């Protein structure tokens, strides 16, 4: 306990340094700014803004990225409350009741409850991250290559199971991501693999290019197809930002339940914020005394998913910081950022760079506080941003992405590769393939292969090693059970229902 306090004190001393505070604020601001734009999800936002953090010192860059992440998520909820277009998957459910509240003239209450719910969830889960960090890190020391491989396999299976649509197609995406990650020089022998003798591919395909193409360019191309007239922005002036006593009492239970649910689901690899918000909404609706109010502006229907997705966003840092394994696509981007700064995510971060580890955790709490402070007064600004027509917005995003990609290596080829992945992403969506598992697999690929090779070498070529070591066997068993459950058609039908709702 005293350790925890001492660590948190160290963290706050790092996070409260004026420069880091500024990065945190800046991150939360630009994150919200981009996240508010309709049709741009959290992953796209983080991918887009990744390059602007590269020039910063490592601690500052990661603090800013974390701020961008929460900001993007919060911005997404603002959009779904005010416009009937969810900015991203996590705020689809917020849309249901939030937009109804806004149409009834209670946009202010919806926005503030979303902010308060997120802040409360952020506080709880920050403590959780700090408390679980140390024990999980010591657990990581028990892990050998076989266990790491099995854990990553479990993570990928989670991503497959939780992705919407066909399980088989998600598996195909995972395999394609793994294959893509192998393009470039072999880690052990340096042999060029699948490079087709293209010099630019010998270092492998850059992660940001893939993410920017699949999530940035592809989404823009797809959004262009949709009619922009169906946007339904709440025109009335937003007043009454302070929630009433009744609002607070009505939503307090929902916020706490959402926080608990979100915290648990966030830790699970492959899960994260999307599932958490869906689960919290469904749960609230089920236990509610008057479930028919859901969908017609129930405040609990805003509070619960908002608390849950923020809690999950926070706790999804746990597997990344302690085990070095990104549980979702955003965390995969964080790995990319860490790698660029020369930090290898994993248990050694906490030991070797405690100021980075605890500084980031402390900045999570500060970031949440800032979101409440900046978002409520700035709602007017975000609303006016929503009125910018998409026909002017999308070329701006395109050129911003182009410059961002180009700036990483001063390489026009990277821009070209991202453009190709943009087309690939467009094609994938048209054929009901989800890009998220591909990106996760792409990031985990090199780590997975390395551990697979090491485990096989240590076991002298005996593949049963994954089943004879108890921790590894347990992880594989969980993965197998998950996969079997997901494959059962009955359940996969129900799964779709959850996502359709």
């Amino acid at each position, binding site marked *: 306990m005293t350790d925890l306090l001492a660590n948190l004190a160290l963290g706050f001393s790092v996070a409260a340094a004026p420069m880091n505070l500024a990065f945190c604020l800046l991150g939360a601001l630009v994150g919200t700014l981009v996240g508010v734009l309709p049709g741009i999800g959290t992953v796209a936002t983080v991918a887009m803004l990744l390059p602007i953090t590269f*020039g910063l010192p490592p601690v500052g860059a990661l603090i800013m990225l974390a701020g961008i992440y929460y900001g993007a998520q919060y911005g997404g909820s603002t959009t779904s409350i005010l416009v009937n277009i969810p900015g991203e998957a996590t705020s689809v459910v917020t849309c249901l009741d939030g937009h109804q509240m806004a149409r009834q003239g209670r946009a202010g209450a919806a926005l503030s409850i979303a902010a308060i719910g997120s802040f409360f969830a952020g506080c709880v889960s920050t403590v959780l991250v700090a408390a679980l960090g140390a024990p999980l890190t010591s657990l990581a020391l028990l892990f050998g290559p076989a266990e790491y491989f099995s854990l990553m396999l479990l993570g990928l299976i989670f991503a497959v199971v939780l992705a919407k649509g066909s399980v088989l197609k998600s598996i195909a995406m995972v395999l394609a991501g793994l294959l893509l990650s192998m393009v470039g020089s072999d880690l052990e022998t340096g042999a060029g*693999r*699948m490079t087709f003798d293209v010099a630019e591919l010998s270092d492998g395909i850059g992660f940001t290019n893939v993410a920017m193409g699949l999530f940035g360019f592809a989404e823009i191309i797809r959004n262009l197809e949709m009619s922009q007239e169906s946007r339904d922005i709440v025109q009335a002036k937003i007043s009454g930002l302070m929630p009433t006593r009744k609002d607070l009492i009505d939503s307090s239970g929902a916020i706490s339940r959402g926080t608990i649910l979100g915290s648990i689901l966030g830790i699970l690899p492959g899960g994260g914020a999307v599932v958490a918000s869906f689960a919290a909404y469904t749960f609230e609706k089920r236990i509610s005394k008057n479930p028919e109010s859901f969908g017609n502006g129930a405040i609990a229907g805003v509070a619960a998913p908002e608390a849950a997705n923020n809690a999950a966003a926070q706790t999804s840092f746990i597997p990344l910081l302690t085990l070095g394994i990104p549980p979702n696509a955003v965390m995969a981007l964080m790995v990319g950022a860490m790698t660029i700064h020369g930090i290898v995510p994993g248990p050694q971060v906490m030991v070797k760079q405690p100021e980075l580890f605890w500084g980031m955790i402390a900045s999570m709490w500060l970031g949440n506080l800032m979101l409440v402070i900046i978002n409520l007064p700035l709602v007017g600004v975000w609303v006016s941003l929503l009125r910018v027509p998409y026909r002017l917005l999308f070329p701006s995003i395109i050129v911003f992405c182009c410059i961002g990609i180009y700036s990483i290596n001063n390489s026009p080829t990277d821009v070209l590769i991202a453009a190709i992945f*943009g087309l690939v992403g*467009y094609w994938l969506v048209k*054929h009901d393939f989800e890009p998220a598992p591909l990106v996760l697999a792409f990031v985990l690929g090199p780590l997975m292969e390395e551990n697979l*090779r090491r485990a096989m070498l240590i076991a002298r070529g005996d593949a049963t090693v994954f089943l004879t070591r108890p921790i590894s066997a347990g992880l594989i068993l969980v993965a197998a059970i998950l996969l079997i459950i997901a494959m059962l058609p009955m359940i996969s039908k129900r799964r779709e229902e959850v996502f359709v709702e």
Partner: protein
Amino acid sequence: MAGGTKSSTGGGFLLKIRGPRDFFGGLALIVVAAIALWASSSLPGQQGFAFGPGTAPRIFAGLLMAVGVVITVMGLVVKGPPLESFALRGPAYVLVGILVFAATVRGIHVDVASIPIVIPAFGMVPATFLAFMISIFGSTEFRWVESLIAAVAMTAFCVGLFVYLLQLPFQLWPMF
């Protein structure tokens, strides 16, 4: 929707394609897997207990091939939604815009079939402006005046952010 496939390419098959999204998606996966297998075929494989550089790519390409075949077969048998139509205008202009940015920002010198193609380095300002003005045609609601103003504003914003604020070493103006 009786066999609701409006795919024209299905004519050569004896079986009716009932789920065209799965069918063509699966075919594409098979092609990708085949390319990966071919590209990694020359790499050394297993040596003793150690994986060679080619082992893992071949394992995963093989698995992808298998999954691709299953998805393709499912596409033949299981009824699914029809193919969505692909828009041309949006992707085309956006793509050209991005390519123009990539080609002009630093210039390119390549030989295509021994014909040298040289595009001079225009620098970031013209490249950004051009990319904006080209990709904006991807939308059907194009208007000249506001587009030009927005393009200038966005170019100025990007220069301010990336060059002055983030201090990235970009060449801003043409250098021939």
